[in-house]
């Protein structure tokens, strides 16, 4: 490499009290490259991004920008130095409309609009208040806002984690072009397919330390995994599906039966069954009604029509407690929605125990402890910072949201994208766990935005498009291209190239296919 790095950070360290989030991290990014930053949950990726962009200050370390030492003390300073982040959490001001958000950051409006369109959202109303915009779109807006000021270094922290495949593709495409135009991108993702489709090099963090920088070439995944996880090497294909496959003499009465369910205008007609001992995958693009489906099953919103039956009995939920009583527990994809961040891991896991009025009395501490500890062990939650959940890394927080219902021994889990932002190792554990849960005769409804997961955990696939179930088929037929086509509402068997994810070697142009999504029907 003859070019000098655009950004060069060495020896970066950051302590939170006794927890060392970063110990000795280094990162060097060349002009024109898309540089992956990888690491297991809690490795310190987000922390490094925050330090580089002035959102927090480091305890030690040296940061050079174009060879000059810079002391970046605030996001505004980072912006002046040409560093623009898209953080793991959306950063628009919730109560301001999009336009005001742009004015606030001094972002030019027209380029922003152009980028938004390019990123697959053709009809954005910039007068809309950020609070009313769905999460996935917010993420895209964050990115468009960063792109509009043409930064030298763009830092994307799990940009694609909350995105449906269609939007994710657009993002990848745009990011790749950034690299082509001589700028640099630091790209954080837990999805290898994205990394290999996009990145030139990867820096791997483990426990707050940079443990290696590798070039992305075919077959490098195994090496990265090894670096990320240290000596621990996991088999990437451990799906315990085979066991459940055999034990599936469909029972006469399904555990959960959904009939012609309707919610507002978003969910029009959904019917399916969920049997005991089964993991059913739900697949949909962003905004096809899956949020409403899960919310209705969880008792968060009231359906406007149709019926839900549990164990053959018709049920009406007016509050999540009703669903929980019927044995349905909802694990939201957004952990901030599920966790009391200032409370301990234990209290978070034990929360459902105290929910009902009759359990408001004294707590049986020992019993509770046993249940909580066993759940923590089953999910291998890193409890170094268990005093407050907010001090855990994102992935570990995610595990706590599931552990709660494992401890409560719930019969049916409604998991909404539970592996969002989770490292490969943990993902394997969660897959295993879900299979195990099903193996014990329980059932899982599993929505995922990562299509490859479907094959690993599910027995059946339910495809939702435009608020309707468009297809239900066994997992054997569910390879990624098939799923993708189904998710776009195309009939099974039709052939069309869809997106760079379907074929990593296709050129970006092909993905501008006529049935480009984005608008909800």
């Amino acid at each position, binding site marked *: 490499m003859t070019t000098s790095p655009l950004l060069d950070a060495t020896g970066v360290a950051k*302590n*939170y*009290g*006794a*927890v*060392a989030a970063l*110990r000795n991290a280094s990162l060097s990014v060349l002009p024109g490259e898309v540089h992956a930053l990888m690491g297991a949950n809690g490795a310190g990726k987000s922390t490094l991004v925050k330090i580089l962009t002035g959102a927090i200050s480091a305890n030690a370390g040296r940061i050079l920008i174009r060879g000059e030492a810079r002391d970046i003390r605030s996001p505004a300073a980072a912006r002046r130095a040409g560093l623009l982040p898209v953080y793991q959490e959306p950063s628009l001001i919730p109560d301001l409309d999009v336009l005001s958000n742009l004015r606030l950051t001094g972002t030019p409006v027209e380029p922003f609009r152009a980028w938004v369109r390019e990123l697959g959202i053709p009809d954005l109303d910039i007068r809309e208040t950020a609070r009313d915009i769905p999460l996935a779109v917010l993420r895209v807006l964050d990115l468009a806002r960063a792109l509009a000021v043409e930064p030298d270094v763009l830092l994307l922290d799990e940009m694609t984690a909350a995105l449906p495949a269609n939007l994710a593709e657009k993002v990848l495409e745009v990011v790749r072009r950034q690299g082509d135009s001589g700028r640099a991108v630091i790209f954080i993702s837990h999805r290898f397919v994205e990394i290999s489709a996009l990145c030139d090099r990867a820096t791997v963090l483990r*426990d*707050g330390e940079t443990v290696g920088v590798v070039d992305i070439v075919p077959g490098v995944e195994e090496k990265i995994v090894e670096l990320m996880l240290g000596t621990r090497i996991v088999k990437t294909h451990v799906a315990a599906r085979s066991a459940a496959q055999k034990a599936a003499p469909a029972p006469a009465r399904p555990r959960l039966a959904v009939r012609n369910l309707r919610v507002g205008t978003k969910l029009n007609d959904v019917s399916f069954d969920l049997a005991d001992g089964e993991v059913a995958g739900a697949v949909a693009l962003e905004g096809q009604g899956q949020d409403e489906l899960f919310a209705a099953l*969880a008792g*968060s919103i009231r359906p406007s029509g149709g019926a839900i039956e549990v164990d053959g009995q018709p049920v009406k939920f007016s*509050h*999540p*407690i009703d669903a*929980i*009583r019927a044995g349905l527990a*909802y694990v*939201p994809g957004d952990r*901030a*929605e*599920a*966790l*009391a*961040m*200032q*409370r301990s891991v234990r*209290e978070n896991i*034990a*929360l*459902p*125990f*105290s*929910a*009902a*009025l009759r*359990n*408001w*009395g*004294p*707590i049986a*501490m020992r019993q509770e402890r046993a249940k909580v500890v066993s759940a923590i062990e089953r999910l291998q939650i890193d409890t*170094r910072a268990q005093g407050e959940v907010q001090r855990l890394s994102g992935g570990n927080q995610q595990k706590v949201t599931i552990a*709660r219902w494992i401890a409560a021994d719930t019969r049916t889990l409604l998991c909404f994208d539970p592996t969002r932002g989770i490292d490969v190792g943990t993902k394997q554990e969660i897959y295993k766990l879900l299979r195990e849960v099903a193996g014990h005769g329980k059932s899982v409804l599993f929505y995922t935005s990562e299509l490859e997961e479907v094959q690993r955990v599910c027995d059946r696939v339910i495809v939702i498009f435009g608020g309707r179930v468009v297809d239900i088929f066994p997992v054997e037929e569910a390879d990624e291209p098939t799923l993708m086509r189904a998710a776009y509402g195309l009939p099974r068997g039709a052939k069309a190239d869809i997106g760079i994810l379907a074929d990593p070697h296709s050129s970006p142009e092909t993905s501008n296919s006529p049935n480009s999504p984005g608008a909800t029907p």
Partner: protein
Amino acid sequence: MSTTAIQPVPFGRRLKRFMADRPLIPLIILLVILVVILQILRPGIVNERWIANTIKFAIPLAILAGCQTMTMLTGGIDLSVGTVATMSAFIMATQVVNQDPAVAFLLAMMPAVLIGLVNGIGVGVFRVHPLIMTLGTSLIGTGCLQVYQRTVIASGAKIPDVLAWLGTGLTYGVPNALLLFVPLAALIVFTLSRTGFGRLLYAVGDNERATRLSGVQYWQVITALYVISSVLAGITGLLYIGLIKAPSLSLAEPLVLPSVAAAVIGGTSIFGGRGGYTGTIIGALILTVLTTLLTILQMPEGARRILFGLIVLFVTAAYLRIVEER
């Protein structure tokens, strides 16, 4: 694995961390410092009688601050406690003239329960901001009390002996009020740390949506909370009337802002989810001692208020500095 335990930690940091893990210790130290200053300013003041007196006056404040602590844990605040305490005190003192004390007691607690219920429903069901809700009910309560006062002008008032004994009496130099307070405080501390209800208070204050998804019915928790808070305030009123022995229509109002201050000084977060009652009790003691300290300083009223404000600010800031060091 990644704890920084290898290199020796300087003593100052260790001390800080030690105190940060035990937030009560700096508070107690602060209390002691105040008492020492008092003793230096007026040698001999700190004696048994003074201590008993301080405790007597700190107890009503501490109970009201308990109401604030619990409501603040859920991200709320209860500004109606002053009115509720005043109402129950006034009703007790006027009803006991013609009624059996037990009946008078029930009558006195009725508005407390009612206001608590209204607060709870307003905040829990209609989602009115607690500040506004409790302010509103406190205005309504005050108005009702004044209308009520008209009807009892003729009958006069009387302080039941039990209350006077409880409020002012000493047994072997120990205030009788402790007989009420110690079990009450123990109950609050236990409730907060070891019961499902206590857990829910913290959790609801931290993230209400999360508790909802876990099956918690917000309105139940909030309604129960505000009723409990109001009942505690009512009990405080009875205790306080025993101490002051002069029913007035604004008896406990001056305790409201200090009760908020006591809870905050004691380390309870006004934004919810964090805090506890033991700190609050010490906070109440600190404020009471501070008041005495300022009474003793011979300076104009204005200067005294300035000093009070500055000290409250300083204490809270110093305490936060110590505890929030991470």
